[in-house]
């Protein structure tokens, strides 16, 4: 029945927006965790599945461990909507999100069956297809999460950058934000990028699509980028050979700080 299916889809989409809004509030508040409705509706549990590891983002962004309250809600979501896994399941981005959310929930003490990691991260298909697949996994771009997807992101900053630039030029705002978030994550992880992230963030804010889900991705990209800027500003290590001690260090600092 088309009408019922549409209504159901709208209800779930609304729930994702509301849940993204709650994550945004927690992120803006600082020091907290997502405040979930008690009890969460079925649609809201579905929304938790859709956001995946991002429901833990407020804690992870503050370098705190994943919180048990959120882990309990993730466990409920997994009971109602069992995570997909098994052979061949690697094709779906949802499996990676389940894997990451499940891992964080277990870390926070939830008792749930382990979600098997998909066979391999996105690969092949040229930089266009690969970067689109990575965009769908942007919820994994969080501090404190590591895995094959993160290794893949670190290995190919050029393809991520090309994908982000392509998405901006095609006015595909959601993809552009998600890939820019991966770029901000990469830079924070010490990867040198061929493109500057802060001007992209400024541009993305100007042309935002108005959804809470994009706003959440945007806020996380902002936070990751601000952190990598702080890392870069750290003074250079002092264990230089004595012979260099008299030389001004500004040249080096400029060279490394300069975009290509």
């Amino acid at each position, binding site marked *: 029945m088309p009408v019922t299916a549409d209504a159901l889809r709208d209800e779930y989409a609304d729930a994702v927006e509301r849940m993204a809004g709650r994550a945004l509030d927690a992120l803006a508040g600082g020091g907290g965790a997502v405040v979930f409705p008690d009890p969460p509706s079925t649609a809201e549990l579905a929304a938790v599945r859709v956001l995946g590891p991002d429901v833990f983002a407020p804690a992870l962004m503050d370098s705190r461990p994943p919180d048990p309250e959120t882990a309990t809600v993730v466990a409920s979501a997994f009971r109602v909507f069992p995570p997909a896994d098994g052979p061949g399941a690697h094709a779906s981005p949802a499996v990676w999100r389940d894997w990451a959310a499940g891992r964080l929930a277990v870390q926070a003490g939830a008792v749930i069956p382990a979600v098997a990691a998909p066979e391999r991260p996105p690969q092949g298909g*040229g*930089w*266009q297809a690969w970067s689109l697949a990575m965009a769908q996994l942007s919820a994994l771009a969080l501090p404190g999460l590591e895995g094959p997807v993160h290794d893949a992101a670190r290995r190919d900053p*050029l393809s991520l*950058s*090309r994908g*982000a*630039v*392509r998405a*901006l*030029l*095609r006015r595909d705002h959601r993809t552009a934000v998600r890939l820019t978030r991966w770029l901000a994550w990469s830079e924070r992880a010490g990867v040198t990028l*061929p*493109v*500057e992230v802060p*001007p*992209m963030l400024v*541009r993305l804010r100007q042309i935002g699509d108005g959804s809470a889900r994009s706003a959440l991705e945007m806020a996380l990209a902002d936070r990751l980028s601000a952190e990598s800027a702080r890392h870069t500003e750290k003074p250079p290590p002092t264990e230089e050979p004595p012979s260099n001690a008299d030389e001004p260090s500004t040249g080096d600092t400029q060279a490394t700080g300069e*975009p*290509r």
Partner: protein
Amino acid sequence: MTDAATDTELLATAQRWSSRALHWLHTRYRTGQGDLPPDATVDFADPDSAYKPLGEAALAASLVLRDGVAGARDLEAARDLMDLCWRQLHGGDLLYERQLRHMLLTDPVETYAHFARVGYRHQPLEDLLDSFTRLRAPNAVELLPNRRLAVANARRVIGLGDRPDWTSLSAATWLGALPEPWAVDWSTGYSITHTVFHLTDWGARPEGLPAAVRDYLRDWLPVWVDIWLEVGQWDLVGELLIVDACVGAPVCDSATWDRLAAVQHPDGLTPRDTDPVEDDPAEAFRDHEHTAVVAVIAGTATLSRVLDASSATR
């Protein structure tokens, strides 16, 4: 893009597309479609009508002759096309008179360079242009930075003695600023390609590109080709492929060439974009001659780049 099979396939497609474009162009000029009006004088009312396309056709033919990587039939067509265009310009007299009358115009020197490149010379015009090197006025003409490069390269090709500051000329362009690659737009796309054409003299001087600009282009060309391919801007995609031939080993894949070859009509016309092509031959020529020029240059630049590279490694 490093395996030999892909390279061979790419080169075959490039050669075929380019050669068919050259013969389409040649046929149009041989049948008089590109002629200047019979009463053309130095004061062209509308220099873009036939004069600009004529210079572009001569540019394409001159590069085929300069690079010398085409087959005998293509070389013959290119030589004949040069002759036809040179005759239209009265053996250079029209350029000379236009430059003499309008000393601040840059199109005579730019057009003449295409001929001088392959041995069509006009001594009075060269003497006139040489005298300009001792004046401030012609060099102070206000031009867009990529246009200033066009004039500097034309004077270099002709062999005039001035020594422009290529570094500052290059730095003044949009491309020279290494701008945010997501900020590019359609007309800026053409500014980029022309900056590269003139700095490298259409691929003959790859070292004319600053290393940072070359790296920047190698990073972002595939993105720009992708988005303009998606919206069917065949002419601009063709220009970007010429750029690809000017920056070292190609970064664009053979699928791009396949797309352009696939939109070429059986008679050799390549549409500039996805708009319908006019049935009227004169209109079709006016709308699409530039894309034919682009196709010819893309083919010769790509073939000569690959042949240079393979002879260097032997």
